């Protein structure tokens, strides 16, 4: 059983914390507990939200007291193991053309690498979706190879970056699903709709998914964007395997 502690978050949420760093093993415990708790359909649990290193459990205190929920979590933790589950693999087009990747050159310079090498490293990595958050459908993906892991967020965020912008910061990469202020270094842009409003509201990724990026030219990017705009760009997982998430 992994080490964990339960922290109070008011009277309608508890945080089950497995650690305080970015680590796939912690993530595997978070996702395993989320799956277990969701599967147990505990009366009074409203929803669970996995994060990089903890699971927040939102609940109705009139149905389930904090003490009862803690007992329930302790019980589920006892037999917890990083369960095998269906893991979805995605291969997502991304354009690394400097025209729409404003920080590719500067990141290369700071890392002592050519832009082409930065791209090689980014596309060679199989990323794990640690969590979604900040914006609808925004995935936090890790881990970047060591050569690209040394760059904290920008001191001054950009006021607005376009939807699809692929950012890196510290050991993580992300894709901004909508136009938004953003503080990560932008090294690519993806035409994939990570958050769609029409015909209905959907998000593409979910915690535990695996993602690789496939480079496309600026021209291909524009063609894919046109298809995305007309609703004819269908993105499916390339593979679904049984395995341990994370």
């Amino acid at each position, binding site marked *: 059983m992994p080490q964990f502690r339960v922290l109070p978050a008011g009277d309608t949420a508890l945080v089950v914390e497995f650690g305080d760093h970015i680590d796939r093993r912690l993530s595997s415990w978070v996702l395993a507990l989320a799956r277990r708790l969701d599967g147990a359909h505990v009366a009074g649990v409203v929803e669970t939200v996995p994060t990089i290193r903890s699971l927040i459990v939102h609940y109705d205190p009139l149905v389930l007291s904090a003490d009862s929920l803690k007992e329930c979590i302790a019980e589920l933790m006892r037999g917890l193991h990083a369960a095998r589950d269906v893991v979805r693999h995605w291969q997502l087009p991304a354009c690394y053309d400097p025209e729409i990747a404003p920080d590719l050159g500067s990141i290369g310079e700071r890392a002592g690498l050519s832009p082409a090498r930065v791209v090689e490293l980014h596309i060679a990595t199989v990323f794990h979706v640690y969590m979604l958050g900040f914006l609808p459908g925004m995935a936090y993906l890790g881990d970047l190879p060591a050569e690209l892991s040394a760059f904290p967020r920008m001191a001054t965020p950009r006021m607005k970056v376009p939807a699809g912008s692929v950012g890196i910061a510290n050991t993580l990469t992300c894709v901004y699903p909508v136009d938004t202020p953003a503080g990560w270094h932008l090294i690519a842009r993806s035409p994939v709709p990570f958050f769609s409003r029409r015909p209905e*509201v959907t998000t593409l990724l979910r915690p535990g998914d695996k993602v690789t990026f496939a480079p496309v030219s600026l021209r291909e990017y524009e063609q894919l964007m046109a298809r995305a705009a007309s609703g004819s760009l269908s993105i499916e997982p390339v593979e679904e395997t049984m395995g341990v998430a994370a």
Partner: protein
Amino acid sequence: MNAVLRVLAPGLLTTVQDLGRPGYQSLGIPVGGALDPVSLRAANALVGNEPQVGALEVAYMGPTLLVEDGEARLSFVGADASIEILSDEMATRGRRIASMRSVRVRRGEVVRVGSLTRGAVLYIAVEGGFAIAPVLGSVSTYLRGAIGGWEGRALTAGDCLPLQRNEPSEREDCEIIGLDLAPLARYRAIVGPQSDHFSAAAIEKFFDSEYVVSTGADRMGMRLKGPVLQHARGFNIISDGIAPGSVQVPGNEQPIVLLADRQTVGGYPKIATVISADLPAISRLPIGAKVRFAPVCIEEAEAARRRFVADIEALPGKIVPIRQSIGELTPRLFDCNLIGGVIDASAGAPELAELQ
């Protein structure tokens, strides 16, 4: 044909809100919903709606709405505001009504809501609700994600909001008596989840100090200004989940209370969490309001929640028909010292204005 509310002027930030869309936070989609669900529920009860029906949430400055294609019954609950019913678009003055009541409005009439005082939000419910398709089970407007409500955004002039009904039912216009929306002396909060990111002195300071609401019209969070709260171990944490009422302390060491449109996860330490029973009351505070917190344990919060829910369930019992006849009204006017003596404007008697 359904009745329509045509927006002649939108107000500062008028959005459609209901009780929110729980269940999608793991996809990064916030719960959202009314900042003050107590007022929303009361507004719905006044027009005979179920509690979760979507209504207009008005922030600071109200809209001007024209009733078209039918008639409607509206209700107003929340901050104080001047509410005027004008006979048509050309009229400059109309009859004033108080908030905390419902009113039947005719085709062609205009409802004009002025600036709000003693609160940041006011709810305008319509009998039967709006004919708006829910998104993920809710009509709440989530502005950052541009989903829900009216085209995923705040109302603008020219919008035409269709109602579910063409005309109001025969039910009477009502008022709600004894709904307490006054600020609290202290807002109760449970320490944590990141209590270990603050010194004991900082936590003590948080509960001993007075803060002032420094920004408004922000459905995500309420920035407070006051004594700085120093972090014990820096202000960056690996993101974790955010609860309703989380009080996060970013690098400027000033607390932010996270409200209805709070992000699902966040990377700043959270010193405390406002309890669910007090969250509607703090959420309705306007810019400049003073805020003090009090630490409570989970048992006390759970007891407060039980009383809070009992109060909500008692809302329909506080609703009474508005007396229309002069015979019944007169004794009340004497009570208010409004006839047969000096008129005290501060006492307020909406019925009198309506008779004029």
